[in-house]
């Protein structure tokens, strides 16, 4: 090959790279087919729609539509709503999700018909609960990639007995039927489709083919005439399109400044990356844009003990102080941090890390101010 052709090839490569637009929040994955993009758009229409009682909303609900909460900075993003969860930790460490009392999500709104029938404004808080938690709305960007990470890769990071003596004891959570969980702040849900189908019911009271029954009102059946829409309230096609939209939401591009690159190096050096594993790789997928892709995840999808100050509820095998390592995605636009939004800055979120994260946290706190700022700049770029 002549030197001229090599130079021309390199120039073409540089030009192609330079011209590639960064992926923004809410964008679809790169490399989707026309047909997949159409499904993404069709799913966005369902995601953006608002339900009413006649179309399935309620009778208990937290929001009228997906994008009422997942809205910032684009559909699929975060929201300022905070919801309430409750469970009970029983003898022997068994976690009871209080299904007999309406389940772990305590809906904060009711339809006018339910209010008229029972005179309630919110779902009654379960009397047997031993823990109460609040949860902010997470971003959904890149969740399709997380969904495609093989269980074997998640398990490869697990070290429940701390055999390497680094103080980190990651372990997987399990769903009610025993599969490895990965979604939700306690990694209780195994797949993205199940997370979505469950959210339709738990967040909007919209039954669907995957969960065709409404939850009870504190263990009591829904009063007659209160829920006019026949179950399931959306069909499989609407559920499938919503799953497509969420699955195809891309992880926004990470653009690092020089300070951010320094922060990334510090992030690894002080131990944050032990749990917030920088990159994960998907397994086989029928979707080419998801198939065997390495992406910036900053999570191991495992549970870690975060200390007593953050402890709230149990869920599955997760104890009150156990939380899944949060994927660090979409922090560039975040105003609140941690599972309940109690931290207003990344620095405060790090300060609140306890349990297994104490060593890394303390290393962060001992960094010179300039290096702390660099690390925060890195987080703000994710």
């Amino acid at each position, binding site marked *: 090959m002549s030197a001229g052709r090599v130079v021309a090839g390199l120039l073409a490569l540089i030009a192609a790279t330079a011209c590639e637009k960064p992926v923004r929040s809410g964008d679809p994955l790169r490399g989707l087919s026309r047909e997949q993009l159409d499904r993404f758009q069709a799913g966005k229409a369902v995601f953006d729609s608002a339900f009413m009682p006649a179309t399935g909303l309620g009778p208990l609900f937290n929001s009228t539509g997906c994008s009422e909460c997942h809205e910032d900075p684009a559909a699929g993003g975060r929201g300022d709503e905070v919801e309430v969860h409750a469970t009970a930790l029983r003898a022997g460490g068994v976690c009871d999700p209080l299904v007999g009392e309406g389940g772990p999500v305590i809906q904060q709104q009711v339809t006018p018909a339910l209010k008229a029938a029972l005179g309630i404004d919110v779902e009654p808080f379960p009397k047997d609960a031993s823990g109460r938690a609040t949860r902010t709305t997470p971003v959904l960007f890149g969740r399709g990639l997380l969904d495609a990470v093989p269980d074997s890769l998640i398990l490869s990071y697990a070290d429940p007995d701390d055999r390497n003596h680094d103080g980190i004891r990651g372990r997987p959570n399990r769903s*009610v039927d*025993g599969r490895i969980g990965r979604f939700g702040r306690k990694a209780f849900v195994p797949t993205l489709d199940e997370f979505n189908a469950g*959210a339709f019911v738990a967040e909007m009271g919209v039954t669907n083919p995957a969960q065709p029954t409404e*939850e009870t009102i504190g263990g009591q059946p829904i009063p007659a005439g209160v829920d006019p829409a026949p179950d399931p309230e959306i069909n499989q096609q609407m559920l499938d399109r919503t799953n497509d939209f969420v699955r195809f939401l891309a992880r926004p591009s990470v653009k690092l400044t020089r300070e951010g690159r320094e922060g990334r190096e510090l992030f690894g050096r002080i131990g944050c990356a032990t749990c917030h594993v920088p990159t994960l790789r998907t397994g086989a997928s029928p979707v080419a844009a998801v198939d065997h892709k390495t992406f910036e995840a900053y999570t191991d999808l495992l549970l870690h003990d975060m200390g007593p100050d953050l402890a709230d509820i149990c869920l599955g095998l997760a104890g009150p102080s156990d939380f899944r390592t949060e994927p660090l995605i979409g922090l560039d636009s975040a105003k609140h941090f941690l599972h309940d939004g109690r931290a207003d800055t990344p620095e405060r979120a790090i300060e609140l890390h306890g349990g297994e994260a104490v060593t890394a946290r303390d290393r962060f706190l001992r960094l010179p101010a300039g290096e702390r700022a660099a690390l925060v700049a890195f987080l703000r770029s994710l």
Partner: protein
Amino acid sequence: MRHPAAPIALLLWLALLPARQQQHPYVYQGTIETTQPKAGSFALITGVGMALRLVSIQTTPATRVASGTTTLALKALKPGDVVRAECHSTPRGLIADRIQRIPLP
């Protein structure tokens, strides 16, 4: 003239009917919430995501309960255990034919 094999085929089909139904039982896999060994029943937590539901299941003396190849008594099942229950539907509700405890690694 009627085909002589027709009644035989009908009898065979009727004879196989229970077995055919057994091939399509109601199968639930979930976490045991409560057990009532004396009443021979238990409640199973199933569902998708955070939308969980309870399924009430009865047992009979013919119900086989096992963990791997080891046969268990119903009272050996505890809240928090994950089980797979193969059931059939009756007017009394779901009756378990087989319950297999699933080991969690």
